[in-house]
């Protein structure tokens, strides 16, 4: 059993190889979910949050409570799929292929993590859990900063570009520890990218509605930035994948790189636009509901 995946000159085999670090992370996430469910008393943090927000909202316009989206069932489903995605991204075979054999596998990992796992796990995180984890002090201040588009987008973009640059990828893939560092950086970049629209902490004001959709459309460029290296290259840019033993006959390094670029640019866009469409429809429904006579009657805003 290995700690983390790294490049290897050995021929690829389809025999299962567990990675201790990946399993530890996945089971830690599952453990938090189970602990939170078994623990109960979820209202404690929310009551504290409401009290905090009630006080804070009179003193700062920044602390308006964000809409707490998602039902309990929705969160559970998001959590299950998020954990499945996390496991798929971090463990064999995708992680092993991505670390030493196929650039395509590596880009699939990144896209799934950035575009699927990060938003699902952020959505699955109950506000009360976020309050318990972050609290209301300095960590919340940092979180608020990281949830601003002007911070989140450049941080995520620079992280993804740097961590995918050929000068860094090849040496980082050489050892399990540096490979872990690299995977950690693009994972954090993925979460950072979603913070402005998906931050679970009720003390952080999220983008919603049209602003959120505009943000998502605009940030769609970020996950594909590493693809620029590959799209415009005449040769394989990563020596690790170029000289790795072949996994599929005829699938050479150039084809692999072209496929990886397509995965980033097409696959990433498709995943993102699915989410934009979902948000657009949800926003539209909310707007229609808000304008309906019944809603106005119930809320007392309709004409007498």
């Amino acid at each position, binding site marked *: 059993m290995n700690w983390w995946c790294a490049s290897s*000159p050995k021929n690829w085999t389809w025999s299962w190889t567990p990675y201790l670090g990946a399993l530890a992370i996945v089971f830690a996430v599952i453990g938090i979910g189970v602990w939170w469910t078994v623990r109960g008393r979820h209202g404690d943090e929310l009551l504290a949050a409401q009290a905090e927000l009630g006080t804070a909202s009179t003193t700062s316009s920044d602390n308006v409570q964000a809409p707490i989206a998602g039902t309990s069932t929705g969160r559970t489903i998001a959590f299950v799929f998020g954990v499945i995605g996390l496991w798929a991204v971090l463990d064999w075979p995708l992680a092993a292929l991505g670390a030493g054999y196929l650039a395509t596998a590596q880009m699939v990992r990144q896209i799934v993590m950035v575009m699927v796992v990060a938003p699902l796990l952020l959505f699955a995180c109950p506000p009360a859990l976020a309050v318990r984890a972050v609290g209301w002090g300095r960590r919340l201040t940092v979180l608020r900063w990281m949830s*601003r*588009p002007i911070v989140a987008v*450049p941080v995520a973009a620079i992280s993804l570009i740097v961590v995918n640059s050929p000068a860094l990828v090849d040496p980082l893939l050489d050892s399990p520890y540096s490979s872990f560092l690299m995977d950690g950086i693009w994972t954090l970049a993925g979460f950072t990218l979603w913070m402005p629209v998906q931050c679970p902490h009720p003390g952080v004001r999220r983008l919603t509605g049209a*602003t959120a959709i505009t*943000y998502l459309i605009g940030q769609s460029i970020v996950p594909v930035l590493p693809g620029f290296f590959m799209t415009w290259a005449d040769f394989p840019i990563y020596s690790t994948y*170029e*000289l790795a*033993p072949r996994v599929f006959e005829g699938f*050479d390094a150039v084809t692999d790189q072209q496929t990886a670029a397509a995965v980033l640019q097409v696959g990433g866009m498709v995943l993102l636009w699915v989410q934009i469409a979902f948000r657009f429809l949800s926003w539209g429904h909310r707007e229609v509901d808000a304008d309906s006579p019944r809603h106005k009657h119930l809320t007392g805003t309709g004409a007498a």
Partner: protein
Amino acid sequence: MTPRPVRRNLGPDIDRRRFLSGSVGLGAAAALGGGAALLSACSLDRASSPGRSDPTSGFGGTLLEPPFTKPDVTFTDLDGNPFPFLEKTEGQLTVLFFGYTNCPDICPVFLQTMARAREGIATGPGSRPQILFVGVDVARDTPEQMRTYLNRIDPTFIGLTGSEEVIGEAISHLKMAPVVIEEPAADGTYSVGHPAQATVFTRDDVSHRIYPTGVDDRAGTRMEVWVRDLPRLDQGVWK
């Protein structure tokens, strides 16, 4: 009385400050993306112009001083005809590699790299080297097997066979490690140890450089190196 400025109500979901900060962030991302694309395109374009590259920049592989002469051996081509090496390669840029068709790693990586490198050079000097692949596993590297194998990679590659003595003589002449046939496994398959260098013979009929091959990113020769070096070697520049 000074009139109070009237603030436009942008609606509950469109907050001006948020919108502006979002726009600035997106602008920064777009600028970063454009910059990265430009940088990568520029740097890679320089590397991909071998015919126009700086002739004094470094070579890959190892310089041979004195250069290796060609082995005076006669292989057999895939049609069963004799292939006198000296005669058939005279005055041509030739890349000679010893491998075997059941090789799981080095051989397919090297041959695919060479095929792509030829595509990369496209035209001009170095664009039409003779790539000779000598099958050292004489029991399994039959002409049919080699033809099928090479056609999948690049039909212009020339497959050669020969007796163990002929192959051994050529390898020995080029001061390479001898071929080692490993003990068969339970399922009858076996590995073959073979030289992991490609020898490039230039138009003056000697080899000034050998290139390592391998599946380690520190050991193998990359496509970019071949695309840079073959045109220069073809023009008689080797250091």
